[in-house]
Every structure is written in C-alpha cells, then in structure tokens.
C-alpha cells in the first residue's frame, strides 16, 4: 500500500538531520490506511498550499462534552481513510512520566482503534491520539478506562492541567507540582469533562519562576513556585565557582535585575529584601545557591494567546500561598470563588484574563473577596479617574462617611 503513496513533496522532508515525521508516518502506512491517506491528503495540501479539513462537528464519548476533537476530510472521496479523523485527548500523568508497560498498553489500544499516530504531547499537555472514526470513539474510551486512563479537556471546560517535573527531578521545586496537578485534576473531574464555562480554562503548575511549563503565558491559572525567605548560600561551593574561573561579576552580579548581589573576596552577599526571585543567580550556580525554606507559590491569572483582545500574561492575584499537610482546601476555595464570579459575570468566549481586564482588577478582587496588594501591580494608577465609593452627603454635615 505504501508503495502507491506518491508523496514526492513530503518525501523532501525525509532528508536532513532532524527526525522526520514523514518517515515515521510512512513506517505505519502499510498497516494503517488512515496513516497512508493522511499522507496523501497532506501531499495535496503541499501541492495546493491549503488545508483540506472541515470544521469539527459534535462528536465525543457518552456523558462527556470534552476530550474529543471532531475532524472530517473535505475530500472524503479522494482520501477515504481520513474521511473521519477525530482526535482523542488522553489525560497525561503528572510530569509526563511513563513506564514502558503503561505506554505500550496505550499504543496497542490506538493501533487497534485509531490511526496509530500520536502527538506526544499536545500543547496543553494531553496525550493526543491522532485520528479515528466516530464509531471507534466509545470503544477507545472503554479500552482506555479499563487500563486506568481517562480523557482530557476540550471546549469550554477546565482543560487538562499539566506541570513541570518539579520535585520528581528538580532541586528548584518550591511546591509539589506533580501532586497538585493530580489533585486538581481529580477534584475537578466534572469541570474537566463537561464544558459549562464561558470559555476554556487552563491550569499549569511550574515549580519555580523558571516556569518550565510556560504557565505564565499559556494558562488561565499559572501556579508558580516561590519562596519568601532568603536564598540559601553555600559559601564553600561559591568559592569554587570563583576558583574555577566562572565570571561571577559579569554573568551573575551584573545580570541580577535589582543588583542586589555583592561579592566580597570569596563571599557572596545577597540583599534578599530586594531579591525579586528571578532565579538567575541560582540557575548559574546551582551548587552554591538554592531557593529558600519558606516555600509556596504565587498564582497568576489570565494568560492567553491573542484571540481576541490580544495576548496576555497571567497577572498576580495570589502573591503567596502554600499547601500544608496536603490540604488543598484553600486553593480549591480560591478556584471556586474565581469560577463562580467569572461564570456569573463573564460572557461567552471571554477568557478570564479578558474578563478581568473588562471588569477591572479591583472589581474582580472584590468579587472573589481578596484584598488588593501592591504585589499585584507594576505600579499604582497614573490617571486620576478614580471611582470614589465613599463620599459625604449633605446631611452628614461633613462628619461621617456617607453611603454609596
């Protein structure tokens, strides 16, 4: 079958040092007609310089509103193998850790029920099983759940949370990203599977301000590890960096954003009251410096891509919180209040970041019962258009504060 593939343009992409998705797909095209027709339709796209997919329809598994993206070829007669080509989003494990046994089970399921093609992983974090027919969706779901796997999110629901490797393989982790991701996912199964929000809501957990999941740019709720006390210093190890000829002055001291580092002789000195936890000095000298002991996380809300009001990075709503004794109630409570307020006052297809911009940060904070803090802004307002809520009424005779 692969013999009659005729994909000369795509085959140009088999050359060169970087691994080729064309070669890889070709390798299953013999046994998977879906894969073969995918290549054929893609070849036509390369010829014509346009895609040939139709707008998704409403497909899915029973009782779930999310987790499946419907997709149909615009040229089903020419490429029958991809006339249906839905993707199934499988909720990945925290930190994208696998054993070979577990992954092989999934691979077997998809070789049986789908195209045998995957995105490992989708941009949100899911394992994306790429392409199958409508009638295979329910069987795929059953086979997956039997092995302990469930679907991720799609549509206007909570999207599949994801996290950096965190405490599983990183000395910088300021909280347990892996556990939080698991707990949040389990706690909000209903919100994940049954879209009822104004729009999508993404969560990403990064263990420190390096933000290895790009949470601040790509998640409505970015949970980013942080510490409150001093950076831990091992002066002996620091001296070794100097002795090894590492240019501490140029590569660290001068790059500290608040210039709060000084070096005297072979000792490093950090003005921690002015450290903004950027991580740079720790990144450069991981043996000498480490995050502090009083660890927790900040929560930045509202990141998103440009559609429609312009891209946003998440903005600080919770400057500091910590999970103690595995008790997530405070966090759940915060999330619930936030969702409730957004749900009630947001409009359709309005991400929470755009919602906050529309109603204003002050209103949002009041709505979710949080106190304003200078930590939430770059600077206080510079325009004088202040909506004063308290004022004196005539009858107060200038004494008490009037009602609004």
């Amino acid at each position, binding site marked *: 079958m692969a013999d009659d593939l005729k994909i000369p343009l*795509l085959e*140009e*992409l088999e*050359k*060169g040092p970087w*691994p*080729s998705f*064309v070669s*890889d*797909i070709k390798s299953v095209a013999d046994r998977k007609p879906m894969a073969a027709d*995918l290549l054929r339709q*893609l070849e036509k796209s*390369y010829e014509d*310089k*346009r*895609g040939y*997919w*139709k707008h998704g329809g409403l497909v899915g598994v*029973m009782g779930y509103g999310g987790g499946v993206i419907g997709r149909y070829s615009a040229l089903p007669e020419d490429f029958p193998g991809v006339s249906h080509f839905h993707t199934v989003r499988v*909720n990945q*494990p925290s930190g994208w*850790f*696998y054993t*070979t046994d*577990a*992954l092989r089970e999934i691979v077997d399921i*998809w*070789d049986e029920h789908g195209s*045998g*093609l*995957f995105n490992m*992983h989708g941009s949100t974090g899911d394992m994306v099983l790429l*392409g199958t027919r409508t009638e295979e969706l329910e069987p795929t779901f059953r086979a997956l*759940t039997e092995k302990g796997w*469930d679907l991720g999110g799609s549509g206007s629901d909570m999207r599949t949370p*994801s996290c*950096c*490797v965190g405490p*599983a*393989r*990183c*000395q910088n982790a300021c909280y347990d990203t*892996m556990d939080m991701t698991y707990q949040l996912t389990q706690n909000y199964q209903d919100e994940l599977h049954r879209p009822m929000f104004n729009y999508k809501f993404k969560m990403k957990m990064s263990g420190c*301000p*390096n*933000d290895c999941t*790009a949470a601040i*740019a790509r998640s409505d709720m970015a949970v980013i590890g942080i510490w409150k006390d001093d950076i831990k210093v091992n002066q002996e190890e620091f001296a070794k960096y100097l002795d090894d000829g590492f240019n501490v002055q140029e590569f660290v001291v001068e*790059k500290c954003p608040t210039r709060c580092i000084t070096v005297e002789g072979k000792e490093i000195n950090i003005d921690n009251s002015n450290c903004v*936890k*950027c*991580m*740079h000095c720790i990144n*450069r000298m*991981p043996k000498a410096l480490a995050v502090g002991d009083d660890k927790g996380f900040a929560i930045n809300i509202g990141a998103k*891509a*440009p*559609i429609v*009001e312009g*891209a946003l990075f998440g903005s600080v709503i919770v400057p500091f919180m910590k999970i103690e004794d595995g008790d997530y109630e405070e966090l759940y409570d915060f999330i619930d209040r936030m969702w409730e307020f957004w749900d009630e006052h947001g409009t359709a297809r309005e991400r929470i970041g755009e919602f906050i911009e529309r109603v204003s940060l002050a209103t949002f904070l009041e709505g979710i019962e949080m106190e304003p803090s200078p930590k939430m802004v770059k600077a206080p307002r510079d325009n004088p258009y202040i909506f004063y809520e308290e004022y004196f009424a005539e009858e107060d005779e200038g004494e008490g504060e009037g009602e609004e």
Partner: protein
Amino acid sequence: MATEAKRVTDIGPPHYEKFLHPLIKENYGKWEFHETLAPGVLAHTGPNGTIYSVRMSSPRLVSSNFLRMVCDLADKYADGYFRFTSRNNVEFLLANKDNIEPLKKEIGEKGFLVGGTNNAISNVVHTQGWVHCHSAATDASGLVKAVMDELAEYFTTEKLPAKLRVAVACCLNMCGAVHASDIAILGLHRTPPRIDHETLPNLCEIPTTVASCPNNAIRPTSVEGKTTVKVDEDKCMYCGNCFTVCPAMPMADPLNDGVSIWVGGKISNARTEPKFTKLAVPFIPNNPPRWPEVTSKVKEIVEVYAANAKPFERVGEWIERIGWEKFFDLTGIEFTKYHLDDFRHAGTTYRRSIHNRY
C-alpha cells in the same frame, strides 16, 4: 448493553507515583543540585543518589512504531522508565551512569539526536497545521522539520549565548508558545473570510457570528431574502475568529496564506520579566515542502544572535540591549508600517522618550 454496567467515567489520570523510577521516589522533593555531563545529559543528585537524564529529539507527531522503539530503549537502558518534557522531547531516566554512552550511541544509530539542554535550541513547540486543523494557514510539522534541519547543530551543542526557544503555530489562535518565544513562526491569512451565503444562514447563529469579530467588521445583511452576514473588508484584520465560530466563513486562500516571523519573547522570569514576541518579518508566502525563504531567514537571525549576544542573554534581552534599530540593521530585515502596532494598546508601544541610538 451488558457492558454498560462496567463503563467507568471520571477516573482521571493514573497516579504519577506508579511511573516514577525508584531512585526518583527516594529523592522526591530532596534533590540537591544538578550538573550537565554533556549536551542532552543531565545528572540530578539527591541524598539518595544520582539520576541521569538523556534527552532525545522527537518530531512530536509520532507513530506507534516510534513509541515502541522508545519503550525498547527505556527497557534496555533505563529500567523501563522515561518521560516527555514540556517541549516534547523524550527523557530516559537512568540509574546507571554506564548506560549513558551506549544509549546515546543507539539513539544516534536510530536517527535521533541527543541535546536540547542549557544554551541550545530545544525542540520546537508546534501545532497541527495541514495535518489536522481546519484553521491552518500553513503546515506546522513540515515547517518544524525544515527549520530544525538547518538548526540541528544548535540542538546537539550548547554553543548559543543562552536558551533559544522556537515555536511554530499555523494560525492566529497560536496553539502553543508563539506569543512568548525567542523566535516564532506564525501562519497567517491575509484576506478576509469568504462567506458562503448558501450555508451560513443554517449553520451559524447571526448574533454570535457578528459578536465574534474583535474589530466589529461583521454586520448582518440579507442575501436573497435570507439573513446572513457581510464583512467590512477595511476593518477585517484576518484573525479568523469568525471562522472558529461560523464554519461558513472560511479563511483559507492559497495565494495569500503564508508565514510571519517573530522574535524576542521569553517566558522565564530569569533576569528580565516575561516578554511578548515582536514582529520581525511580516509575511513570506507558503513555499512547501521546505519553505526555503523562512528557514534561511530564521537561520540568519539565529546566526546574528549567536555572533552578537553576550553570554546568558536571551534573544529579546540582546535586542533590548542593542536597540531594535540595530536588530533590523544586523538582520537586514526591512522595517515597515506593518511593524507599527495599531491594535488596542498600540499607543503604549510608541517611543515616548528621547532615548534613541543615532
């Protein structure tokens, strides 16, 4: 309906603990430091020993054959344990240091690369493109392959000034990290949606469709007695949001779809705050299968950056140090009116000081 009783839902993902290497469990939350042994090879040490991570490139769009191969390698060298990274590389997790070199060798033999750590280009975060998405103005996997063929040496070495994160997205929805990458390649349309007045009235809700446009370019109208919509072409900025909402307003236009290049974004808080990616090249027509104009421009930007930036300076930090004008000079990219922002907060991007390099 017999099986129905057994149907389970809402079980969520398996608990991650099942998938952790025993050495990782022992050091969980107790790691002390890490070292880089070679490009793509990291050693993390905790009180209970050292785990070695070997990072392998992946096209992300992969087959069951690829995943089986990965499993075989993990069984052979890593006690059956591995993970994927947030940029879609594979990381084999080795307890035994001696397995590093044989594993690297076998990865190489199979045609994959080891690298992506520290001051390197790591894997490209990308999207579906013509492989799967109805919205795409370009292909993603093909662009990534073409670009990374040119840049592979920067994956397997650590000779760049700093980390360099590349992203590709096939339409303005930007499913990925385009808006905050050192270099981003973005597919885009340049013509307004065409309206299928036959199907639109049945397929789409008029008020929702009208409301979908961020620039108020869509108005209800009547064609042959049916209520449909029209687009004020002067107001349309080709964002495609209407098409997402209403399938009867397709955007694809082979003559005018293509690719733009963006630079200077970042995500980490290291040194500077996160930055959005800024426009470098407004438009290059689609030229599959290898998009030579795109790859050479990207390569040129990388080379100029590599030659001029100081150590630990990300692309955006470098440009801010030398000034945008110098960036356009050095890369030979023309500065046009398209580079001038004209969206919501455009005024905040105008230079409102005398600080300028002459």
